[in-house]
Structure formats: C-alpha cells, structure tokens
C-alpha cells in the first residue's frame, strides 16, 4: 500500500506544568486507510508515549474520541488522513470545554446536566413485568428514535457558541435526550422534565445557531429537539393562561 507522510500539529497541555497549551508537530507516515485516531495511536505507541487522548471502539459508536480536527469537531476514528493530505492537520481538544490534559476534556458538567433532564422513563403507574411489554407501534417508535441515537460525543457542545459563552447552558445533547423521553409513548414525565428544560439555562438560552445539528455524527438533530421543546413549552404556557384550572 502506498505510504505518504503527513504532519499532525497536536495540542499538548500538561496541567500544573504549564499555564497554557502548546503545539507539538509530528510527521507520520500513513497508509491510505488510516483515520486520524490511527495516527495518534501511532504517535503514542512509537513516537511519544506521553500523548493523552480518549478512545475505545474505533467504530464511531462509543463517543469517546471527539476532537477538533482542523477546527471542526470530529470523531477522530471517523475522519481519514487522506482527506486532509497533503496539508498539515491541526488536532486540538474539543472547543468550549475545560481541558484536563492534552486532548482530554472535562465533560463532568455534561453528566450532571444529563441527569438533570431525567433521561429515564417516568410513569404514573408501572405495569408489572409479568404483563409483558408496553406496546409501541413502529410509528410511535419513529417519533423519538432518531433523538435516541446520541452517543454523548460532545461534538455538538464544541460547535455551540452559546455553550462556549455560558457553560451553564444545558445544551444540545442533554436537551435532545430529555426530549427523546418526552416523545416516548411509554413516558409520562414531560411536566417533570420541564423544570430543567424550560428553565432559562435550558431551552431559552439557545439562539438556534444550528451548528450542533450540522456537526452531529449520528444525525440526532438536537437543534430541532430544542426548538420543538420551545414550541411545546410555549403552547402549554398559553394553555395554562387560558385554562389556569386545567391540570397538565
């Protein structure tokens, strides 16, 4: 197989040793079918064992290998070196997040937010398991299915300027996952989730930049989820004005 050499300019950051990140360049010979992650693994194994980054599945489903590749948030296991060659590739940690080390970002904030939107089935009345499954038609499944495809890769957060400006913003993936449960025919938790989704730091911060949906590798379309929650919330708000006695 033909081998060419490409330059990777990788962001390095060693906490407690340096105040700001630096850039280190590596020239990497690569075969045609290598992804950016392969190059990083090559560096780690053969050139510089101190480079840190996260990865696991190398097939675009575990969500751990998100990085900025030439300024765009990407899964590094899903972008090919050949598509950037012969130019150098800039590899940086995902934007908008605090950096722990090299290419590793702090996403603990997201895990708090995820929990806050209650991403689990909430029911008024549980059906005993012995009575079997809740029936759900393919159409009812369709209603929420693509919002359930989120791999928590954080690319959308890296693309969202609102999150960049305000790390308190609940943000695209977490809202989409909350909405995914609202849309599930088995769920009764919409009102409960509204407390967080309908808060200022929830949907209302979003100015519909829409980049979150553009970069999402799983076509979750979080931008749509957020706007639709806005519509639902506004509708219910009006209803509660018109029928203040109504229990919704």
């Amino acid at each position, binding site marked *: 197989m033909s081998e060419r050499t490409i330059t990777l300019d990788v962001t390095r950051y060693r906490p407690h040793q340096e105040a700001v990140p630096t850039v280190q360049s590596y020239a990497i010979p690569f075969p045609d079918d290598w992804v950016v992650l392969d190059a990083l693994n090559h560096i780690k194994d053969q050139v510089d064992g101190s480079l840190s980054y996260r990865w696991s599945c190398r097939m675009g489903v575990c969500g751990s290998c998100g990085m900025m590749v030439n300024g765009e948030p990407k899964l590094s296991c899903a972008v090919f070196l050949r598509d950037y060659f012969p130019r150098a590739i800039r590899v940086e940690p995902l934007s908008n997040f605090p950096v722990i080390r090299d290419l590793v970002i702090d996403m603990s904030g997201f895990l708090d937010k995820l929990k806050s939107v209650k991403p689990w089935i909430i029911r008024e009345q549980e059906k005993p398991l012995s009575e079997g499954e809740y029936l759900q038609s393919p159409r009812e499944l369709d209603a929420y299915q693509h919002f359930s495809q989120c791999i928590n890769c954080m690319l959308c957060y890296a693309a969202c300027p609102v999150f960049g400006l305000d790390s308190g913003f609940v943000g695209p993936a977490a809202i989409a996952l909350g909405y995914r449960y609202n849309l599930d025919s088995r769920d009764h938790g919409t009102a409960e989730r509204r407390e967080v989704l309908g808060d200022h730091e929830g949907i209302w911060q979003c100015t519909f930049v829409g980049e979150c949906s553009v970069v999402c590798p799983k076509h979750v379309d979080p931008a749509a989820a957020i706007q639709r929650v806005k519509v639902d919330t506004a509708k219910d*708000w009006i209803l509660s004005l018109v029928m203040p006695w109504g229990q919704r």
Partner: protein
Amino acid sequence: MNGRKTLEPLWWGLFSAGGVVAAFLVPIHIVITGIAVPLGWLPDAQEIYRHWPVRLYLFILIALPLYHWAHRFQFALSDMGMRGIHKPLAVLCYGAALLGTVIAGWILLRL
C-alpha cells in the same frame, strides 16, 4: 426554577409571531414604501392607511416584529460579549418593544 413561572415562553411566542409576520409581510412593504414609491414606480397611496382594517393590519405588521427584534437583538448582544448585562439588556429591549407597541397603537388610533 419552574419553567412555567418565567416569562420566557411569552417573549419567545411573541418573537416567533413577529418572525412569521416579518418573513411573510415585511419584504413587500419595503419594496413598496421604501423603494418603488420613492422611485416613482408606484403611486403613493397613503390615504388607505385610514381604513380601519388596514390600521389593524398595520398594527400587527409593526408591533409584532418589534418583539422579534427585541428578542434577537438582546441575545445577539449578549452573544457578542455582553453576557454580564444580559438582564438589563433584556429589560431594555423588551421594554422598547412594549413602548413601540404603545406608540404604534396610539398613532394608528389617532389617524
């Protein structure tokens, strides 16, 4: 914290309504009163503004997009680095839209 107690659904609802009005109606009005009439391509027919249905229409045409502006403008400013003063900005912008609504109503009533 309760979503129902903030006024954001109201402002967002008005913003959306304003956005629809602006999208469907405003361009042709710019063409008519801002370009075609001044350039003499169309007659200047301001007398129609006195019709009551037209006044109502004008009220909607003018007032709602003000909320659309207020909403977007205050967010744009805070996105451009004025996050610290987001609250006063919001008061100022929505306040201006409210004031604009009152003035528009007053002018259109007095025609």
